[in-house]
């Protein structure tokens, strides 16, 4: 096994099996790091907690809900306004967050009574919202408050409200991933099957593991609507609480982020016989194939093909413009969990970049399997990276750009590596055909920033050019391009709007497809 031992981690030998360099001819049988094991204390790992995995990642994107955390105020504050999961109801879930504000006296005497007062207060403050999620935290798990019982009491007293409880304290498991699992299963156990939906199409899906980062979900829903597919629910970005109670009536679960939401799909298959179809909204090929697979499942492949043809014609010339200019750029693909494999192949094939490293903070070995297999020779794969290892890797790999989180992005900035936010995006959405071009555009803007070029100059030692007052991205990116490529009329840079989601929200002209029952009746 080609383990990669970091110099900075020689003193903690157990780290050695968490990184591999993919050698010539190696595959997963010979090249796979350990994953999802307990964190070594004091390494300055980037991992979060199981509370945030449940509440912040999966719970809070639900848009028509009061999201309450039962605990001291910090958990709530810290997981509020740090993501970009928008919604089409004026971002209610981004704006409002609720903490029961557990204090010392409650730790000593119990916090159940005040929890109930909190619930009533929150509903009274927002009388138009009738749904609530409550998240346990470390403190209230340890004092043993029975949140489910209190929620049950309130639901009996106020029949018009509905409350979901998620018991996923921060210390539960090695990372945020433990919380993903817990909330998946809790939702299924408590809520699925408690609402009967109106079925309006012959083709009914749940869209699962999609969090509407900068509007991703709305982009994908646009495709589904154009195919005449009814999306019963989205788990959970821009999703409605009551829609998610009706998940059991879908014909198919279309799964995007398998890391965070495969659990509920697998259980929906076991309990309700709903098949799981893994798809991928990132990249022209992967997205096209995904729409085809869904089309194939329902026998409406032609509808998928029409969309693919239309979107490709519109956006391929723009993607290609960037591909020519990003060719061979070295990328560190350092996201949280699933994007390492969602993106690894697609950005190499369609943007021409070279992924020199992948990492995952909270992914499991399965994510690494997919990630490593989609990387080329020489790629460094790191599980649960820490501060020093990240810096060592950046020094050795010298990437042209890094895709990672906000704070690690600041580390990269100091090391003169341009950064794009892999979790919240820079100027997304990144899903959809247009979104993928936006991603390429953002990479281009980062890599060819004139300011990045200037940052390398040491004015005390280097020769200062002094012959130009400015540089443009284009002057930098096109300097070495052949004439034929530079002026190729079949390609162009991005022509979309600052906010492409506004147009999608305003759209009403979706095709109407007659139901099978109507056709049969007519015959």
């Amino acid at each position, binding site marked *: 096994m080609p383990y990669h031992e970091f110099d900075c*981690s020689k*003193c*903690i030998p157990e780290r050695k099996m968490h990184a591999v360099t993919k050698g010539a001819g190696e595959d997963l049988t010979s090249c796979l790091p350990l994953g999802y094991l*307990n*964190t*070594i*204390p*004091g*390494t*300055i790992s*980037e*991992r*979060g907690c*199981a*509370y*945030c995995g449940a509440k912040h990642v999966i719970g809070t994107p639900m848009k028509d809900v009061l999201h309450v955390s039962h605990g*001291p*105020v*910090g*958990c*709530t*504050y*810290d*997981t*509020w*306004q*740090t993501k970009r999961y928008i919604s089409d109801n004026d971002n209610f879930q*981004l704006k409002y*967050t*609720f*903490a*029961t*504000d557990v*204090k010392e006296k409650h*730790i000593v005497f119990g916090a159940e009574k*005040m929890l109930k*007062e*909190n619930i009533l*207060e*929150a509903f009274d*403050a927002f009388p138009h919202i009738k749904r609530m999620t409550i998240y346990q*935290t*470390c*403190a209230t798990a*340890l*004092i043993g408050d029975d949140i489910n019982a209190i929620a049950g009491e309130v639901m009996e007293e106020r029949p018009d409200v509905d409350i979901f409880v998620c018991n996923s*304290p*921060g*210390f*539960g498991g090695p990372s945020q991933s433990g919380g993903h699992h817990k909330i998946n299963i809790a939702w299924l156990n408590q809520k699925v099957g408690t609402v009967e939906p109106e079925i309006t199409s012959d083709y009914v899906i749940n869209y699962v593991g999609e969090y509407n980062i900068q509007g991703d979900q709305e982009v994908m829903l646009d495709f589904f609507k154009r195919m005449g597919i009814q999306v019963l629910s989205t788990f959970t970005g821009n999703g409605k609480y009551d829609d998610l109670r009706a998940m059991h009536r879908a014909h198919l679960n279309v799964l995007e982020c398998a890391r965070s939401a495969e659990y509920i799909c697998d259980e929906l298959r076991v309990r309700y016989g709903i098949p799981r179809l893994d798809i991928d909204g990132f990249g022209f090929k992967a997205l096209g194939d995904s729409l085809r697979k869904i089309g194939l499942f329902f026998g409406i492949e032609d509808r998928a093909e029409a969309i693919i043809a239309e979107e490709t014609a519109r956006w391929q010339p723009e993607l290609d413009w960037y591909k020519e200019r990003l060719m061979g750029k070295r990328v560190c693909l350092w996201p949280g969990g699933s994007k390492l494999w969602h993106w690894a192949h697609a950005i190499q094939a369609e943007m021409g970049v070279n992924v020199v490293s992948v990492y995952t903070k909270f992914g499991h070995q399965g994510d690494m399997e997919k990630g490593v297999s989609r990387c080329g020779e020489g790629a460094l794969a790191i599980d649960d990276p820490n*501060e*020093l290892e990240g810096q060592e890797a950046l020094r050795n790999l010298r990437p042209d750009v890094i895709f990672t989180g*906000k*704070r*690690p992005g*600041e580390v990269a900035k*100091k*090391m003169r590596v341009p950064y794009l936010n892999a979790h919240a995006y820079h100027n997304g959405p990144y899903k959809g055909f247009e979104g993928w071009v936006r991603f390429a555009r953002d990479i281009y803007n980062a890599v060819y920033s004139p300011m990045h070029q200037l*940052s390398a100059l040491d004015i005390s030692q*280097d020769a200062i050019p002094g012959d130009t007052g400015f540089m443009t991205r284009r002057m930098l990116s096109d300097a070495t391009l052949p004439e034929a490529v530079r002026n190729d009329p079949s390609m162009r840079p991005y022509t979309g709007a600052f906010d492409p989601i506004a147009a999608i929200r305003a759209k009403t002209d979706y095709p109407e497809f007659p139901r099978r029952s109507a056709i049969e009746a007519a015959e």
Partner: protein
Amino acid sequence: MNCEVKAKDRVGTINPIFTCQPCGAQYVSIGVKDCIGIVHGGQGCVMFVRLLISQHLKESFEIASSSVHEDGAVFGALDRVETAVDVLLMRYPHVKVIPIITTCSTEVIGDDIDGVITKLEDELLAVKYPDREVHLVPIHTPSFVGSMVTGYDVAVRDFVKKFATKGEPNGKVNLITGWVNPGDVTALKHLLAEMEIDATVLFEIETFDSPLMPTGDAVSHGETTVEDLQGTANALGTIALNRYEGGKAAEFLEKKFKVPAVIGPTPIGIRNTDTFLKRLSEMTGKPIPPSLVRERGIAIDAITDVAHMFLADKRVALFGNPDLVLGLAEFCLDLEMRPVLLLLGDDNGRYADDPRIKALQENAEFPMEIVTNADLWDLEDRIKNKGLELDLILGHSKGRFISIDNGVPMVRVGFPTYDRAGLFRHPVVGYAGATWLVEQIANTLFTDMEYKKNKEWLLNVW
């Protein structure tokens, strides 16, 4: 009485103003040179605080976690602290100071961090690192007590308590800044330099604003040394600018080492900066130099340009750290504005006898409310549902949607201010801070007038 002081009348918190104690302790820890803190608890208690600080300062800081998982929560997690200290020391050869910062989970399970520190000193440090200078500092910051503000106060005290050592008088002033920005430290050090006063600044965080260098090796970290902290016991006196962020340390030094303590005022605005300089002068015998008379004059000149013309009688709501809010409210009154609502985001019992609050109560000439244990719903609910009319909000970025959704212009101030560029670089204290604040306020009101077409022609001839 025009000014009412009351606690929030709800049990829960909707949109909190503060996060919890460990955040304050972590913010202190990054101000100390060669220091990496270990937060004893779940990983989110560190990960999110590092994110928050990086949002505010656009820089990353190193803070470690003991990574308490389920087994630790059940059986005790002191072994995680032991491992964390060893791993940190092995991999960061420059590290000398390691605060062990507790959280709600490890306080509830009752992990004895003071005991484990003694054990580590006797065993790990003595055996494995006998020739290395290492200081372990216990800091108890359960999240269910106080807020990030009290966490800051406790941590400053605990660092001082750990290191302060009686020696020869060093003729210096201890200046405890409270929770401020790099720009504030620059402004304060400028005032000290003009006064020719040698001071130990707690904490030296100017370097939080660090460069992007061609060498690619710059890092952001504070520069207060162990020696600085040791010397605090031998100073002429301590000035803690903020009663609630550093006051405890000043009191400790006075009680234990007879170092006279002056607590406050927060030098926001002209008047409070005057008082600050007076106290510096009294403590050191150094006169206030003509250069500061001129600097003060420039600030008053700038303020005079806008105050009675544009700021008079504007109604302002303020929220955030208590010393900041009270200092700003006092300054607003000097600017002829009306600070009608002050939100203090925790339940600190000492607000009851804060002389600034008493003075506001005695002298308010218009209806004013001061809410303790407040949340941001206390502001939004009053605007949306209770008819509160405002011209301006002064507060941090977590309140941004109140401003956006209700059309009330807002000047970002305090921590965090992630939705505006570079605010950490500018001071709110001293004469420079007064000028900056007033001009920010004026320009924000001007933009709002133009955006709303509300007497925007007024500025044609200003």
